[in-house]
């Protein structure tokens, strides 16, 4: 694989469009950034004078705080906009809101929105860098990057690993980004869930599909659980939560079918006792909180690679008032 030194792109919209060498560069850079968060002074000056706006149209704690800390530890200034406290409630469109933000000379917009493609739409309208922090059920690229980073920390290499993703694949942007990322990096991905929550198109993505965890977990190096996204479910995809738990909950018993050193992952927030048992979530194989720690280093790497480049706007090119 040929090594590259920079991302030749303005935005990070999804994993689908990234090359293997770009993913590797982000993961290698994140490794260097991890050390910054354990220094006595948790800050480096790389993005001094840059402004990052977190524009969140959906509730989030982890991702928003993670992006905010990542930007702040790089010395960027951060503004958080949540839709309930902004002009969005007055009926302003997404593009208008973003263009107004850009008019205040910001360098990056981190966007989370319930509509698929919202980050792509903004990237075409804005000169500022756009980072997709989750667009509907489409992609959540930084989550997949931090998952791959965490896997690599434990397993050295992603190539050749067996990764099992269990749960609501249909509504999961985390699953989509991880499928693209993990298969590009050479892992074998197995999906498990009720047939109603596995979209037919995934079969074109070099993955295997199973309907019972027991059939997929043997030889697993990584078991990744997903939350049942009731807020996105428009109809009844399974008879009852009780039945879902009975078949799909990752219990210690089921985990024992996997390799002894199988990692347990979850993008959070976890619903204990539904997709994962407390015993497994808090167990020795769980790296769920490491994922959260690594999220900061990964997002620092993404912001650094997108923003610490040769300035696109040169001095003196600002339009003169006539």
């Amino acid at each position, binding site marked *: 694989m040929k090594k590259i*030194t920079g991302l030749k792109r303005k935005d990070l919209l999804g994993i689908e469009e990234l090359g293997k060498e770009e993913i590797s560069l982000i993961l290698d850079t994140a490794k260097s950034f991890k050390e910054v968060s354990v220094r*006595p002074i948790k800050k*480096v000056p790389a993005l001094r004078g840059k402004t990052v706006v977190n524009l969140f149209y959906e509730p989030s704690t982890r991702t928003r705080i993670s992006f905010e800390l990542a930007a702040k530890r790089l010395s960027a200034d951060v503004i958080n906009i949540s839709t309930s406290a902004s002009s969005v409630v007055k009926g302003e469109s997404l593009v208008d809101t973003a263009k107004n933000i850009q008019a205040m000379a910001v360098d990056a917009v981190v966007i989370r929105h319930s509509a698929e493609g919202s980050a792509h739409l903004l990237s075409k309208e804005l000169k500022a860098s756009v980072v997709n922090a989750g667009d509907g059920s489409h992609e959540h690229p930084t989550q997949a990057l931090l998952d791959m980073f965490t896997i690599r920390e434990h397993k050295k290499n992603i190539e050749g690993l067996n990764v099992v993703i269990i749960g609501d694949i249909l509504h999961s942007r985390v699953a989509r980004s991880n499928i693209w990322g993990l298969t590009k990096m050479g892992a074998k991905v197995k999906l498990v869930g009720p047939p109603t929550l596995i979209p037919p198109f995934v079969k074109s993505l070099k993955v295997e599909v199973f309907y019972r965890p027991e059939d997929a977990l043997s030889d697993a190096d990584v078991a990744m659980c997903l939350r049942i996204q009731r807020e996105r479910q428009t109809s009844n995809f399974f008879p009852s939560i009780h039945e879902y738990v009975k078949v799909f909950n990752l219990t210690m018993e089921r985990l024992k079918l996997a390799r002894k050193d199988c990692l347990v992952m979850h993008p959070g927030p976890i619903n204990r006792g539904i997709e994962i048992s407390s015993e497994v979530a808090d167990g020795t194989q769980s790296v769920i909180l490491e994922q959260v720690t690594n999220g900061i280093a990964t997002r620092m790497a993404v912001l650094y690679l997108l923003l610490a480049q040769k300035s696109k706007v040169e001095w003196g090119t600002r339009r003169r008032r006539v």
Partner: protein
Amino acid sequence: MKDKLILDKKNVGKTISALCDEIIKRNQERGSLNDLVIIGIRTRGAHLAERIVQFINRRAEVEIPLGILDITLYRDDLTTISAQPIVRSTEISFDLTDKKVVLVDDVLYTGRTIRSAMDELIDFGRPKNIQLAVLIDRGHRELPIQADYVGKIVPTKKKEIIEVRLAETDGKDEVVLKP
């Protein structure tokens, strides 16, 4: 014009040991070696620092901590250079407060790398002092910075290139001046 050999393998070794003797002597005069730490700037400064630590530990029967600094995130030209530099990790696993720090680099030129390095060091504590050791001083400073220990002063023209090659990265030890 051909490349000019400034130091061969033997003289690189001699120069490093002379630097070490001077570091030991001056720091013993200023107290002891107990609070001394050596920190090298990636890439070749880090290899030099490693050799200096080994030498001083052997010569003075001490155990000097070694740190490695990657100054990329502290550069003053991140948004002006066209090729984005790769960020590598800084490895300083000890507090620098009240330590005597010897910063090590291969070539002292504009002084901008050293400015970045000092800013980064201060984020790891408040050292008692920071000293600078370099293998080659080639002049052309753009900042008011000077070295405490210099292996060899080499007068150069700005367009010339000094290449320090070390066994760890380049297969052999030598310093050449390229026109």
